[in-house]
Structures are given as structure tokens and as C-alpha cells.
């Protein structure tokens, strides 16, 4: 029963996923439908990212898996264990050493480089879902470049609340054409997608879509010209562990006590090493 080949999926399944990946790279920001396979982990738990990773991974790859920026979180460990059990690849928590990084909800703080692939797990691939649930309509709106419903939403929010109420999954325009959902990363990570040297791949297993941002591609958040795109800020906060400032933080509340730690745990560990050396 457990006798399957390298990387779990059968050959035809990989070819279908690979077809969609190549189309995705050639069409930056366009969501490519594909015949998503059922994985041994549940839908919504990273089956899209998993299918991409399993279809691109080679024996010589070094894999890093994070969830919420953390290599040690339960879901990251579970996915990493599954991938290594079917591929025997090496794993690492060091961003700089990894050739494939599968992530949920964050982009690592450490700058990515050219020969790295960042694989995002995506719950809602269609950026228009919140304003238009019908698939045929969504396709037509993308074809017409008609993102007016998103602009109206942005306008209404700005007039009522001073800014967009979208806290994560902030819509971005890729290569000045398609508007896409960047997956539930915080706004802090949005500018870091722009002109990134690494290849960024996005997989939504349940919704059966994938998309990509090739390296060195323009990625801009949807915003009015006279408004600033505001990322999350933590004024006066530094990491209680490593002392880092101006990064994305996890907030830990113990009673009335609020404490902050780096959301990217490997980044935090590396700072600790540097502190110890100094």
C-alpha cells in the first residue's frame, strides 16, 4: 500500500502539475487551473504547495519548510517529514542554504537569491473571490483587466476607515497586468515580492489553481496614487530574544503583559549567534 515512487505522485500527475507550472511562469500572475490530486494531508493544509514541491524537487535539493515564519511549527514539521519520507532530500532551517522553501503566510526575512524557489501555500487563489464568486465572471474580468470592483472596495474602505481593511492577502498587480492574491502574507512582505531574484510559485490544491511570479518581475500593491501603501509597523518594539527591530513580530500575551519575538525564527536564531559571537 505504501509502495509508491519518488515524491509520492504518479508520473502523469506530476506532468499535469508541471504543465501548469510552465504556463504559470509564462503568464506572471495568471491563475492556471490544473487537475489537483488528493494528498495524504487534508485540503487547506498545504496540498497546493505540496504538489508543487513534489513536482519540482530533485534528490540534490535542500528543503526548508516554514509556517508563520517558523520551522518548528506543527504543520511545517508535518509537511517536512512527509516530503523527506518520500524523497529522502536534505532539509535545513537556514534560509540561505535552502534551494526550495515551502511557506505558509510569510516570506523569510533573509534576502532570497537567484537559485532558490519559494513555494507558497494558498487558500484563496482568486483575488476577485471576495467581490465576485462566479468563475466565468472572474475569468471575464481578468480578460478585460476589469478590477473596478476591487477599486470600489478600496475606495469605500479608505473613505470609512482611512485605509484598506485588507490586512493580509493584499491584492498585487504583477508585471503591470494581472492582479493576483499574494496568499495570506502580511502587508510587510508585499514589497519584498517585487523584483525578487528567486522564483515564486503559488499552489492552491483545494481550489485547483497555481500561479507564479518569475524572478525580477514587477509586483505592486493595488493603491491610489495619492495614498501610501502602509505595511505593519511595531514602533519602539524589539525582539525580546535577539533584539531585532523593524521586522515582522509575533505578539505573545500573558495576562496584561505583551511581549514580541521575531516571526521568522531562523532569522532570530542567526541574530542570537551573531550576538553570542560579538
Amino acid at each position, binding site marked *: 500500500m505504501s509502495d509508491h*515512487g*519518488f*515524491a509520492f505522485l504518479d*508520473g*502523469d500527475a*506530476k*506532468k*499535469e502539475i*508541471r*504543465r*501548469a*507550472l*510552465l*504556463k504559470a*511562469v*509564462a*503568464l*506572471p500572475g*495568471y491563475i*492556471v487551473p490544473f*487537475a489537483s490530486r488528493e494528498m495524504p494531508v487534508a485540503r487547506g493544509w498545504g496540498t497546493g504547495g505540496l504538489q508543487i514541491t513534489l*513536482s*519540482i*524537487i*530533485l534528490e540534490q535539493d535542500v528543503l526548508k519548510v516554514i509556517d508563520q515564519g517558523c520551522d518548528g511549527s506543527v504543520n511545517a514539521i508535518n509537511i517536512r517529514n512527509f516530503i523527506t519520507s518520500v524523497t529522502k532530500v536534505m532539509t535545513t532551517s537556514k534560509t540561505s542554504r535552502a534551494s526550495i522553501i515551502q511557506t505558509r503566510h510569510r516570506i523569510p526575512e533573509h534576502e532570497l537569491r*537567484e537559485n532558490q524557489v519559494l513555494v507558497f501555500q494558498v487558500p484563496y487563489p482568486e483575488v476577485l473571490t471576495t467581490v465576485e464568486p462566479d468563475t466565468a465572471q472572474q*475569468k*471575464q474580468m*481578468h*480578460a*478585460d483587466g476589469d478590477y473596478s470592483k476591487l477599486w470600489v472596495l478600496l475606495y469605500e474602505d479608505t473613505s470609512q476607515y482611512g485605509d484598506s481593511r485588507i490586512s493580509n492577502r493584499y491584492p498585487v498587480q504583477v*508585471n503591470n*497586468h*494581472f492582479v493576483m492574491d499574494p496568499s495570506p502574507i502580511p502587508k510587510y512582505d508585499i514589497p519584498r515580492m517585487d523584483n525578487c*531574484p528567486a*522564483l515564486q510559485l503559488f499552489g492552491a490544491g483545494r481550489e485547483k489553481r497555481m500561479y*507564479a*511570479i*518569475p*524572478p*525580477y*518581475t514587477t509586483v505592486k500593491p493595488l493603491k491610489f496614487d495619492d495614498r501610501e501603501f502602509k505595511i505593519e509597523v511595531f514602533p519602539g518594539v524589539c525582539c525580546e530574544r535577539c533584539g531585532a527591530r523593524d521586522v515582522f513580530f509575533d505578539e505573545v500575551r500573558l495576562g496584561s503583559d505583551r511581549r514580541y519575538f521575531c516571526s521568522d525564527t531562523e532569522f532570530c536564531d542567526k541574530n542570537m549567534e551573531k550576538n553570542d559571537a560579538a
Partner: protein
Amino acid sequence: MIADMDLEQLNRNNFRNCLEALARPGNVYQVYPYNHSVIMAMASMLLYPEVTFYQQTEGDWNMIKAITGTTEREAHEADYLFLDVPDKNILQDVKSGNQQNPEFSATLICGCQNLKSGTSVILSGPGVNGRRQTTLPAPVDFLELLAEKNRHFPLGVDLYFLSREHGICALPRTTQVDFL
């Protein structure tokens, strides 16, 4: 390393290089041949029952059909076209998708002698860090027709050049090609 690779291993290594080539136009990667042919290796990697192909090259295509379960079609219907040389007449015919489904477009795999000689060009667009000077193994009129096919993004065709020296480089439809 190549000799003891099984077919799936060959496919996944070739796919990864193919993906890198498409993501970084102008860069040359390696393809491991299958049955002494890099075109056959690409066919084995890309084809499966749900896609179609057209070919105008030497090679044991009956074997490819048998192991991949793929259907052969006319040039204007095919998802993947395997050609010995960049052929303008075929490029003219191939599908370039529609506005709702731009991925319903053709992918060309063109053979060539090598990737070092040919038309001098400057590439720009997604995957290229700024601008990049290189040569493409296709005549000017072929590249002009390609630019014409790719004028109305997201419609267009994606193209790979495969050399007899086992090199691969790609031109996705997003790449702007300027002649020197």
C-alpha cells in the same frame, strides 16, 4: 549519472532545468537526452494523455506515443510542437490561447546546432534582471513573427531552443526581444 537514471528521474531533472530556463530567459541549462535525443527527452517529460502534440523531427514517435499515451494532432491544434528547426510557417499556424484562457496556447520546442551563434538580441521582461545581451538560434524573420504572435499579452506562444550540445534556453511570451 545519466546512464543509471530511470525515466522519471530523467523527466524530473529535465523539468527542473526547463522551469529554470523559462523563468530566466537568456540563461542556458542542460537537458539529459533520452534515446540519444534531447527532443525525445523533452517529449517524454512534457507529454501525457491529457495533452496533444505535433512533430516534424526524426525520432521514434510511436514509442513516445506508447509510453506517454498522447495523441498527435495538426499544428494548429497541438499543445506541444517539436521541430527540428524554427519554422515560420508552423509558428504562423499555432494557437495562442484566448483572453479568458491564455494558457490554451502552444509551446514550441525547436532544435538547433548550438546556442552560441545566431541572431544577436537584447532581452528584457520578467525573469531578466534589467536587460541582457545574447544570441538566439533563429533567423530575424522568425523572431519578428514570434514578436507579432506575442504582441497582445496574455495571448502568445512559449518557446524553447534545444541544442545538439544538450543545452536549453527559453523565450516565454513575456520576453521582449530587441535586435542589435
